[in-house]
């Protein structure tokens, strides 16, 4: 099966739980095989001050007032291991939010909100079209930096996100380079790997390429140089921003429309070349749950960090959305296999160093029941890539104004005409200087007359 996959694309977003993003698929009857939310929502009580709070459908895609708590002590409160029966009750999300924000208890508190298909049109489309993984847990019940380190190193020396440079021991880039894998990173803003000082030579090297080249490279780059593994990085909410640069990594308090647009652009790039698409597997996943509610308790697979005080975690983290996008996954399928972020590293090892695991830790986790992503691939490829919903995505400001992700107005039209003319007159120079224009030209024709999606 793996011999049919020539390119693996990894896109990791930030800080959303499975039920928050994809719980609607089962709740709204879009795919009832998925273990998402079901009616009545009162079966998922969150307990605070002797009162039960239940999940609710969010009204619109607006920015949240604050980030949500998701460091390890807060996550422990959210998982809420019962002192009576030892089970994770998954009922402390409201308590953690109230205690961290100081806000009064609230039946519509942020951790319990979940989206519907119209609010996240691209994620919902991809999840309902391809393979949704409904047992993919964050590697550790803590925050971004340790989970991303597990995802891209297979081990973590840290247990929390803080002002620090992180050890890159076991990192995926060294591993791929040693294995002779042709790899590349496409970053929309400052790369997350900037936080690993040992990786700066990579970050500043030619394998790290501006995201705007992704579409053109997928479309026109020869097979001989095209990468076998691609990491796609959004613009991070927590990274520096200048001018009109807008984060799109879905990290709260960010509204989700920006990330939806980024996801759509990436899917368009990955599917723009039918020949290449036939051998591509794109994996969309999240680093951790970000403080949002999920109803499935994590398995008791423990891990001890490799550095400092060596923190021990008793379980995986909270469940996150995982979507496998490829002609080699069944249409509208669901994988109930147990995955965590190291499942991707298992896949890479199976593909590029067969018979040799990525690392001892990754092998040990496999021994504890964590599966490889390869287990979700099927043998009956469907080579047609259905187009993603093409309408412009709009997000709402707090006061209800629509914030268009796409430009409009007379000046915008003038720019568009000029750009088209320049692309016709000097195509090679434009491709090098303004690579994003190729995707814009190909896609905008389809969206020009489509009604906007107001979420």
């Amino acid at each position, binding site marked *: 099966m793996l011999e049919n996959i020539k390119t693996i694309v990894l896109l990791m977003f930030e800080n959303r739980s499975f039920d928050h993003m994809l719980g609607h698929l089962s709740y709204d009857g879009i795919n009832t095989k998925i273990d998402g939310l079901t009616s009545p929502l009162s079966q998922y009580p969150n307990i605070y*001050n002797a*009162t039960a709070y239940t999940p609710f459908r969010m009204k619109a895609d607006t920015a949240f007032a604050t980030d949500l708590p998701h460091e390890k002590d807060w996550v422990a409160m959210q998982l809420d291991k019962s*002192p*009576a029966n030892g089970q994770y009750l998954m009922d402390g999300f409201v308590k953690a939010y109230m205690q961290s924000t100081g806000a*009064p208890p609230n*039946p519509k508190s942020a951790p319990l909100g979940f989206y519907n298909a119209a609010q996240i049109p691209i994620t919902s489309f991809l999840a309902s079209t391809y393979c949704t993984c409904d047992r993919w847990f964050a590697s550790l019940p803590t925050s971004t930096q340790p989970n991303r380190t597990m995802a891209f190193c297979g081990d973590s020396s840290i247990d929390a996100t803080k002002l620090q440079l992180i050890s890159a021991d076991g990192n995926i880039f060294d591993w791929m380079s040693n294995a002779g894998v042709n790899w590349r990173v496409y970053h929309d803003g400052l790369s997350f790997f900037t936080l690993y000082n040992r990786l700066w030579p990579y970050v500043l090297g030619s394998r790290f390429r501006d995201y705007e080249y992704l579409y053109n490279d997928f479309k026109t780059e020869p097979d001989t140089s095209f990468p076998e593994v691609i990491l796609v990085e959004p613009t991070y909410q927590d990274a520096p921003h200048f001018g009109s640069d807008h984060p799109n990594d879905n990290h709260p308090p960010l509204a989700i429309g920006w990330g939806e647009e980024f996801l759509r652009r990436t899917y368009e790039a990955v599917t723009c070349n039918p020949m290449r698409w036939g051998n591509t597997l794109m994996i969309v996943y999240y680093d951790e749950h970000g403080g949002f509610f999920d109803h499935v308790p994590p398995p008791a697979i423990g891990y001890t960090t490799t550095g400092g005080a060596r923190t021990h975690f008793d379980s995986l983290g909270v469940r996150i959305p995982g979507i496998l996008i490829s002609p080699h996954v069944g249409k509208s399928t669901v994988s109930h296999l147990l995955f965590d972020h190291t499942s991707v590293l298992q896949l890479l090892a199976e593909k590029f160093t067969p018979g040799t695991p990525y690392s001892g830790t990754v092998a040990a986790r496999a021994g504890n029941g964590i599966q490889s992503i390869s287990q979700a691939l099927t043998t009956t490829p469907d080579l047609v890539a259905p187009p993603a919903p093409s309408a412009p995505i709009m997000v709402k400001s707090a006061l209800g104004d629509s914030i268009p992700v796409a430009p409009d107005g007379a000046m915008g039209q003038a720019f568009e005409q000029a750009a088209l003319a320049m692309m016709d007159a000097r195509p090679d120079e434009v491709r090098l200087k303004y690579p994003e224009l190729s995707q814009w030209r190909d896609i905008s024709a389809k969206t020009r007359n489509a009604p906007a999606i107001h979420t």
Partner: protein
Amino acid sequence: MIPVLTYFYKAWIFFLLSCLCYSCSPKVISFGVQPCAHITKEDSVRLTWRVRGKPVLLFYTEDAGDDENPGKQYLTYKMVAQKGSKEATYPPLVLTLHTDTSIDNIIINTRRSGDSAIATGIRDISEWSTHFLLDSLSSPRHRALTVLHAGNTIELSADGRKHAAPPGLTNSGEWEIRTLLSDAEKKDSSLIPPRLLVKTIIIHTKN
């Protein structure tokens, strides 16, 4: 010396510009509601806020009715600070508007103590005030419960029958709920109920 002074001079300019930008951003510094989060139509609420920028208060109501409480509504107050095209928000305040008589479930997580499961918790008086009096209590999940609340001990039968509450008892304050474990639960702790629930009927009384 001169390069050092130059460096500090630039750092100070950067610092001052950063402060200027920050002070230009809208911010909701505080947003609160008095007296409580649970009200009836007899009550009025007082909202307070401190905002940097122009304050805009959004308000909407939502039907929150269910089988137990068909008339329940949520009242949402959202404070937005606006400066130019920038906005800042604060976690919304959502009040529950009850009917004069309504069902209120007291639900608390348990711990094991000997042959019993015990659940202790506090209904915060700042959320509930003292306007909601208990009319009756029952155990809806087929367990006999012993309820301790405000100096009273109330035995609830497993058949779900309503027990009249002592007069003048409010639903706010400390609660303790106890239940005896079955033999199976004593042998296998995974069977112990993680939560205990008391169903109450409350009546709003304007003090």
